[in-house]
């Protein structure tokens, strides 16, 4: 601040005399920043924004731009010239819709199953578990969430293998007929659990389940106990209270969790390649296109699909108040 007031000059000199200013460079830098809070915020934000803006967003937009390049018809090498040929092929190819539909259906099934398994756990954790039990359960959800993805997929390969645990248990309980019946079911079945849609579905559900549990717990924690007592007080049976009060209030948590289960299932390429029928899902398709096929433009076009789906999904989720439950 600059004052042109004639009096201010001697006063400034006075400032220095009266207050023993420790004018180390750090102190002066600190004061300069303290008096300019906006500058400090800007300086704090610059490194993370540069990193994410340049490295992450930069790469992302570069990739999306690639979908407007094409391949040379003879050499199969990417040509850096603007063309919509890739997009035309993308929309024109029935295989595209095959992949997208299959992936979306899988993502929806996994999301529903995860919600179904997550809700009782979350409900028990929030309403019935004591302090210690709650901590144990919480850690019990956190551990698989953060522990190795690959190891957990691997565990299922062991479990679902032809000579693995599921088969052994089925034999032990004389339920081989049931397992065989399941495997013979059209669409979901296959030669063994580890080479069927059912296997893929189980593993997806298993892997992403913790991502559903935590937001639902957070949402349930926010339902005040008094509301539930009020419902009971007004004559609702526990089941009615659950349907009419608890579930609607916890629903944003389910939506928040579904963002993750849905997005993660949609983009995963490892699980279907290890466990399941060898049919392409979205993630695998992208992987194959950029890798073995070397068709970067088409791979880029395919990556737009989950981005668009997630964009729509996030917009809807925001309307449903899911972000407050995150």
């Amino acid at each position, binding site marked *: 601040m600059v004052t042109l007031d004639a009096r201010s000059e001697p*006063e*400034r000199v*006075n400032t220095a005399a009266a*207050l023993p200013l420790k004018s180390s460079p750090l102190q002066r830098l*600190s004061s300069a920043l303290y008096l300019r809070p906006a500058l400090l915020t800007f300086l704090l934000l610059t490194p993370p924004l540069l990193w994410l803006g340049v490295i992450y967003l930069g790469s992302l937009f570069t990739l999306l731009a690639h979908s407007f390049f094409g391949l040379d018809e003879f050499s199969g090498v990417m040509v850096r010239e603007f063309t919509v040929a890739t997009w035309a092929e993308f929309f024109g190819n029935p295989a595209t819709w095959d992949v997208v539909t299959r992936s979306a259906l899988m993502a929806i099934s996994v999301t529903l199953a995860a919600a179904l398994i997550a809700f009782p756990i979350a409900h028990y954790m929030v309403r019935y578990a004591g302090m210690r039990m709650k901590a144990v359960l919480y850690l019990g959800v956190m551990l698989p969430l953060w522990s190795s993805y690959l190891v957990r997929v691997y565990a299922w390969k062991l479990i679902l293998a032809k000579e693995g645990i599921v088969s052994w248990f089925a034999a032990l309980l004389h339920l081989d007929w049931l397992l065989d019946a399941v495997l013979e079911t059209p669409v979901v079945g296959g030669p063994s659990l580890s080479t069927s849609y059912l296997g893929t579905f189980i593993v997806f559900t298993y892997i992403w389940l913790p991502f559903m549990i935590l937001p639902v717990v957070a949402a349930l924690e926010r339902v005040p106990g008094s509301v539930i007592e009020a419902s009971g007080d007004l004559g609702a049976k526990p089941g009615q209270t659950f349907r009419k009060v608890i579930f609607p209030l916890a629903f944003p948590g389910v939506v928040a969790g579904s963002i993750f289960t849905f997005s993660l299932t949609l983009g995963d390429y490892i699980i279907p390649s290890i466990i399941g029928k060898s049919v392409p899902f979205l993630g695998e398709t992208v992987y194959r296109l950029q890798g073995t096929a070397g068709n970067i433009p088409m791979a880029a076009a395919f990556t737009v699909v989950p981005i668009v789906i997630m964009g729509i999904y996030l917009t809807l989720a925001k309307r449903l108040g899911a972000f407050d439950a995150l």
Partner: protein
Amino acid sequence: MAGAEATPAVSFQEVSRRFGDVRAVDNVTFDIADGEFFSMLGPSGSGKTTCLRLIAGFEQPSSGHIKVHGVNVEGVPPYERDVNTVFQDYALFPHMSVGENVEYGLMIRKVPKAERRQRSEEMLKLVKLDGMYARKPSQLSGGQRQRVALARALINRPRVLLLDEPLGALDLKLRESMQNELKAIQRQVGITFVYVTHDQGEALSMSDRLAVFNHGRIEQIGSPSEVYDHPASQFVAGFVGQTNLLDGYLAQRLGGFPGMYAIRPERIRILTPDAEVPMGVATIDGRVDTITYLGATSRVEINVEEGRLTVIEQNLEGGTAVAERRPGANVRLIIERRHIQPVSESQ
């Protein structure tokens, strides 16, 4: 009060602080004398806390000048001001012991360890917390935390101590004993105290002078008795103590001129309708409506020609005849003219 020649401890010259369109402090000018216990009283959002933060250096004025002991503090950050603050929620450092909290300022100034320890023990003794040196703030009661906050500020021997509603979180009993203690400590250390509160009783009982804030402006500055007995405005009369506000015909009859007048309830005396009236007092006839027993006093609501007056009476033995205090009784009220205080209208 300081003479005109002494440098004020704090001086505001036409200071404003705006947050966007909101004028939190609106063109305020006042001085606080050295060694004074000065209170800033007002409802929440009246600008008193912003004034305190301007003195501390947490806010910078949008316009105007602030001087601390004659030095312009424009652009001086809090850590270079010779001023310390006791925060409303104490703001004790949770990761440090009581002793480390108290010594923080000395540690920053690189005072040797032995001296630090000695001075902090002295300070803890002053605020009656000897023996608490090694405790963590979380192990203390609200009142004890408040004392630690006080010790932490005073150990730096600031020239001005700022207190932001320091007793607000305490219960009534503790608050009253802390009021006395704070006042005693202030006399002992001789530091200028600037005390922000919304509790008018606190401001009246502790301050040498107080400023009443409303809508970012100062409505009145003066000693407690000046502010109480001669409220300058309708707002002050209503905010500091209880009052009867009169305007219209009755006001004109009592005050002599049209305008608004304030009369304190305890300045009105209730007599029988036929009682002899002393010279030089104003009289109003009325009828008792309700009586509320309050222990030491009673509150009597009386309907008069133009509305209603509240009277506070001491419950003395042999006071006004019981008959006059019965609901429905006709009474004559007398008020000395010097207690009929003209006030300006407030927003």
